[in-house]
């Protein structure tokens, strides 16, 4: 009886998975079709006449290497900066008592709740004023003010038993030794997966770069996509899907490599004590 009822659940789960993963499969499949086949053989997962021409075209017509490089620079810079500052700030919030600590933490964490749209206009003016429009630096800077890292890494640090820190302190270890030798190794999985998520999110950032970047040579990947979509000349779904696939590769790859870390960190990122 149990086996049968489980089968029912499994069917349901597989169906849900099918729905959520199908668009990705379609994207990959369409990117290898010719335009006419994309229209005539919509459901075919394996193209009748597989072609690389979409990929060749997007790499020929767009500075896609440069665009990928830009995306990489943006994502890497944002990730490195945010991880470092988050670890530093989280450490201060967990292991120090200082005046205004709770208020400061409250204020910082509150910013998670402010949708970016709400600070978009002034940020736009700031970036314009310091001449960073159409510059990936202008894309990077506002992304740095994000408190989720502080939140997640603080959660991880709080789960380290205090006696470990106290034992180290008894042996006269300094703050930086404690941080480097005890805290960091223990929160490493959390830091890595937070970093990966930062990287992926920044990689996928769309709203802000759309406002800031002008030249195709300065584009990031999600922007490259719109070169093939919704213009007066129509949408070339095959090219759009090819760009989509290029955009997906790195986040998917990173996820598949670090899947265990990420899943475990978020599984335990729930709110305990």
């Amino acid at each position, binding site marked *: 009886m149990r086996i049968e009822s489980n089968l029912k659940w499994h069917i349901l789960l597989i169906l849900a998975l099918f729905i959520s993963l199908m668009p990705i499969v379609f994207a990959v499949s369409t990117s290898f079709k010719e335009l006419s086949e*994309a229209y005539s053989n919509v459901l075919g997962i394996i193209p009748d006449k597989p072609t690389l021409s979409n990929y060749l075209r997007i790499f020929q017509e767009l500075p896609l290497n440069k665009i990928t490089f830009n995306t990489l620079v943006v994502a890497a810079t944002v990730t490195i900066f945010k991880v470092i500052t988050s670890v530093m700030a989280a450490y201060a919030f967990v292991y120090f008592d200082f005046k205004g600590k709770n208020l400061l933490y409250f204020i910082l964490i509150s910013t998670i709740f402010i949708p970016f749209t709400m600070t978009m206009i002034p940020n736009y003016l700031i970036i314009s004023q*310091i001449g*960073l429009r159409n510059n990936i630096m202008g894309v990077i800077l506002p992304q740095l003010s994000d408190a989720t890292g502080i939140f997640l890494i603080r959660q991880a640090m709080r789960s380290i038993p205090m006696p470990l820190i106290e034992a180290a302190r008894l042996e006269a270890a300094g703050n930086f030794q404690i941080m480097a030798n005890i805290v960091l190794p223990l929160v490493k999985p959390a830091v890595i997966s937070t970093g990966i998520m930062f990287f992926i999110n920044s990689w996928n950032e769309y709203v802000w770069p759309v406002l800031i970047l002008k030249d195709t040579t300065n584009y990031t990947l999600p922007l490259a996509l719109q070169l093939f979509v919704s*213009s*007066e*000349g*129509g949408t070339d*779904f095959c090219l759009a899907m090819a760009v989509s696939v290029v955009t997906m590769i790195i986040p998917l790859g990173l996820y598949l490599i670090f899947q265990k870390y990420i899943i475990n960190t978020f599984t335990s990122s729930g709110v305990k004590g």
Partner: protein
Amino acid sequence: MKKNILKAVAVGLMSAVLLTGCGKSDTGNEQAGQGEKVKIEYWHVNAETQGGKTVQELVDNFNAQSKDVEVVARYNPDMYKGLMQNLQAEAAAGKSPAVVQVGWAFLDYFSNNFSYVPPQKVVDDYFPQDKAFLQDNFLPNVMDLAKNNKGEQVGIPYSLSTPVLYINKDLLRQAGLDENGPKTWEDLIKFSDTIKEKTGKYGFYMQEPADNWAQQALLESNGARMISDGKASFASEDGIKAYQAYADMVTKTKSALHISWDQGVQSFVNGDVGMLYTTIAQRANVQKGAKFDVAAISSPAWAGKPKRLPAGGCFLAITAQDEKQQKAAWEFLKYLYSVESMAAWTKGTGYVPPRKDVADAENGLKSFLEENQMMKAATSQMDSVVPWASFPGDAGLQAEQMLLDARDKILSGDVSAHDALTQTQNQINALLK
């Protein structure tokens, strides 16, 4: 002062993240001190599916042959609206490109809000030898398209597109209809209903992007005017009748499709829709994707009435601020408007050339047009071209949005064309005051 502090902090941050090396990508149109070439920016909206490649080729060729000007082409996403947004932001930052594409619908908004130089003024000031260039090469009615409501020549027409009717001949035959398609809107309605009845597929789709271009053709061809004397006037009897006839196809006989542009075109190319009313600029896309017998025919007219087709596409305006830049801008424009460049432009985009004699010139489009029957549908209806209605004043953009909302209301069937158009007209006129 505040700016400097911000700047200092930002620079500090940059070095803090050790990225100074990566942050050196060019920051725009600061003129290179050492090079002799004047660097100007050309802003366009041509995505890769819409001639983006041709823009780059033209710019590269120009740069290769010009001794003192270097053009940087900048793509602006989200069409002319997007370009306008970016221009706004650039202006807010106290900068501006040298040459921009301005969509016809933005003519008034552009001329009211941005500083530009009428091209003839640049010519008169710096290039006396080109004095007659515009006069000689452009038809007056075409040049008029780029005049604002004060009669000032804001720019030079560059891209011209008109709506044409793409037909799925296979489907028409299957429904027992004349495979050459309808000539009038009245016929089109019958065709559409017949297709629905006989094949179960949709008969007709009229493009529904974030503008009312195609709908204007429908209304004005029936004798209505979008704007008269600076006021919205589309809710005339003719206008309402035309709109209602279109709406009835969607809501009563359900033979016409009411859907977003991309999805509508996709459905036509898939063979699920018999007739597609959209811009000639979609020609390449339709031709490449369709696996059936596809053709493009001229816009239908209302029986016994003259066609009025709004010009799509854009004109080029000079937004360069100083003399050096303005001169460079004209040099570039002159290149873009040469017969060869115009021909290349048409081939790359499907737009109709605004300049005289491009179509017939041997170094122009002669052979190209002979081979591309679809283009003929567009070039043959050039005498029906009228300006794309653009609501005047600061609220023009909002007025356009209201008209879009009215379209959705009417096509949803909840509100009659009469009510929606009248109400919207009143609202717009209140706004424009």
